[in-house]
């Protein structure tokens, strides 16, 4: 559905180098990204600020022309076939609106039907579904400028889907939203992606979006892909492990060793211990621990994706 090969984008930036002199310098915003995304996939595209996420997305949607490399979306070349491609993709830019600022939300939807030339019956059916799932009924007649950010974002999502796109690009769809609105947007996207009809590509800084929605994670830094695979693969690669936290009834004996696990934390007079699990199952580790010391309480902690990604960003720096 989406194919890029060594995709690049350079920007010429003029930098002051003297009182009147300016030097021209080339900045590589995207420096050779190769991706292959199949139909129905849900892909999270993340990276620190300025990594080239939005630039990539803009090249995929035909907004920016690439400086080099190949790009193909829905079998089309985005810039030369921009208007044709626009009929097959939906785009939500978290910080730009597709809606008519001064008109009621419902009118924006009616206008989009004309712009995308959608048959009335199809339009009605898609709108009905969105109204239901995104709970739009309360503010269909409110001018967009008076909507809250959460309401507007639900409107933007609907606007991007009314023409039945095959691919949906979301650039930071949850930015600035409160917890409830974030949940609403996420569960809507999860439902949408679950049908397998739409390919989803989303950029975000909120990794909870990714954990909830995307099986595949592409991490970009300084214009280059530094990881492409599942979240588990990322953990495996960076050695992040699940850990077992246990509250003990009596202190942990000195020199105690748990097979297949490493003791990484001791607190409260050796009454609370943390083991990192290296390849051993949580069940086996718990059994071994209970056999040695009586346990009051325990929990298995999943590795924190934020930590992994933060490490990735730092190690990727030149």
């Amino acid at each position: 559905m989406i194919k890029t090969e060594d995709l690049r984008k350079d920007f010429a930036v003029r930098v002051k180098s003297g009182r009147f002199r300016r030097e021209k310098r080339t900045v590589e915003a995207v420096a050779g990204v190769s991706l292959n995304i199949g139909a129905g996939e849900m892909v999270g595209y993340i990276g620190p600020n300025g990594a080239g996420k939005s630039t990539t997305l803009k090249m995929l949607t035909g907004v920016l022309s690439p400086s080099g490399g190949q790009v193909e979306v829905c079998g089309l070349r985005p810039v030369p076939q921009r208007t044709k491609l626009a009929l097959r993709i939906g785009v939500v830019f978290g910080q730009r609106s597709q809606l008519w600022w001064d008109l009621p939300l419902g009118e924006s939807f009616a206008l989009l039907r004309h712009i995308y030339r959608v048959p009335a019956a199809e339009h009605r059916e898609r709108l009905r579904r969105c109204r239901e799932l995104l709970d739009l009924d309360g503010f269909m007649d409110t001018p967009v400028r008076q909507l809250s950010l959460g309401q507007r974002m639900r409107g933007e999502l609907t606007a991007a889907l009314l023409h039945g796109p095959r691919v949906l690009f979301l650039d930071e769809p949850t930015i600035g939203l409160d917890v409830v609105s974030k949940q609403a947007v996420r569960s809507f996207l999860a439902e949408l992606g679950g049908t397998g009809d739409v390919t989803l590509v989303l950029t975000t800084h909120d990794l909870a979006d990714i954990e909830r929605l995307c099986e595949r994670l592409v991490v970009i830094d300084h214009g280059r892909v530094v990881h492409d695979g599942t979240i588990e693969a990322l953990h495996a690669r960076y050695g992040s492990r699940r850990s077992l936290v246990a509250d003990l009834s009596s202190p942990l004996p000195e020199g105690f060793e748990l097979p297949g696990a490493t003791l990484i934390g001791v607190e409260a007079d050796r009454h609370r211990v943390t083991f990192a699990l290296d390849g051993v199952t949580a069940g086996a580790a718990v059994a071994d621990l209970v056999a040695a010391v009586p346990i009051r309480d325990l929990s298995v902690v999943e590795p924190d994706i934020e930590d992994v990604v933060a490490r990735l960003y730092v190690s990727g720096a030149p």
Partner: protein
Amino acid sequence: MGELRAYAALAGAQARSVFSYRSSFVIELVGNVGATVFDVLTVLVLFRATDRIGGFTLPEALLMAGITSAGFALADFVVGNVDRLKTYVRAGTLDAVLVRPLAALPQLLLMDLPIRKLVRVVFGFGVLAVAIGLNDPDWTPARVSLIVLAPLSCAVFMGSIFVISASLAFWWVDSGELGSAFTYGGKDFASYPITVYGPAFRGLFAYALGFAFISYQPALALLGRADPLGLPSWAGFAAPVAAFAVAAVAAGVWRTGIRHYRSTGS
């Protein structure tokens, strides 16, 4: 067909948006009448000091001013708001336009269609009608077609200049008011008989940039007067050619510009 309906829907949306702020619309409307009236008043005031300007009488000069005024008002109404492009480029709002299945330029124009400027169009054509009445030309089929073609060619010409000067924003975000020198400056230039200007200035604006062909030459042809500057009489019919040439340049500049669009962060 579907595309035309889409554009009509865009224009309708703009109209409804504007009318949602009713009082500010009325104020702008009144302001626009004022601005347009002053354009013609300047020509009239000049003739209080002298009865001939560059060898032309008031009605003759008014015909040139009338063609320019009608053509420019039409161009300004349809295309003039393209100079807001620099705001869109700076803010990156153009992204939203580029992800829709329609050509970018018509979308931009219709999304901002300045309905208040319609008054200027009516006024501009009114001046032209009065000027024609005062001159009472000898009507031949060629002149009848010219009176229709001249203001339209002028509009296409001016509209293209608007697009070219706005496109500067793709390369140079703070192009500021540089473009206005050619749009509003060109309109002022073409409002007077070009015989009043010095040779160097006239050479540049009238012939190199082509502003002589949008009102001065057609007016001569309508009046049946020989050009004191020596161009043959068919030059009056060159208006559509000049308009077409500038429109082709504008289309090229726009297309190149949009490939240069850099958008903004996130």
